[in-house]
């Protein structure tokens, strides 16, 4: 799997969205969906949801980000994996509302 090119990353970042890689039978993803919805409503954060088991393209997108996602998910391509193309960072798993909010709103500090 090729790592994601800078160009593709910039294209992703321009959309100003957090990408949420999720799995259709993953209990963590199911638990996070209402939290994600609440963040969209209350904070105006946009999430692009990409299901990875049914959609091969989405799976490849996730795999291309393995270098970023794996360390955030304990060494695996865990779900849900939130990816912020702006700062090329990831947050993984079931998290409280505040944690995801603060992470999603954090400024790029690279």
């Amino acid at each position, binding site marked *: *799997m090729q790592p994601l090119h800078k160009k593709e990353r910039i294209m992703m970042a321009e959309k100003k969205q957090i990408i949420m890689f999720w799995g259709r*039978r*993953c*209990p*963590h993803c199911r638990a996070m969906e209402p939290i994600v919805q609440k963040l969209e409503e209350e904070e105006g954060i946009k999430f692009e949801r990409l299901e990875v*088991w049914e959609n091969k393209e989405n799976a490849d997108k996730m795999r291309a980000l393995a270098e970023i996602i794996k360390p955030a998910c*304990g060494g695996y391509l*865990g*779900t849900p994996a939130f990816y912020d193309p702006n700062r090329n960072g990831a947050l993984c798993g079931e998290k409280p509302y505040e944690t995801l909010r603060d992470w999603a709103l954090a400024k790029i500090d690279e």
Partner: protein
Amino acid sequence: MRGKTFYRCTVCNDIHYGNIAPKICPTCSSKDAYVHIAEREAGVILKFLKIEEGKIVDIKYKTHGCVATIASKDFTLNTDKERIELIVQGVLEHEEQYGLKYCPCRMTSGNFDEDLSLICPCNFKIQNNWKEIGECWCSLFIKRKE
């Protein structure tokens, strides 16, 4: 070096899969009784392969349900029924689709050997999740409280 392959105990027909044959059979305790066999033979003995007149007529992986057979002193199943059902559904769908019970909470990398660590139940005690909060990555298994 042959790599991982199947071995059969010539005394009790126990099947072993690995790099080397066990010295002592764990099923019947016979010593030096294993011979190397083909995958086909192993499949027929383990009843996931049925061959008639030279043709494979049935490939069936016996489904135990990934959780039914597992019991341990230090961990137990999560008591959240909905969660268990969702995970088991995922695991069985993956088995149907890929032949392996891949974990529904971690995506496959696409590298076959690497993804062998994602078969449920996995070796979850090496995960940080287990060390930190006492659960497997999916929270299917949780540490028993003392």
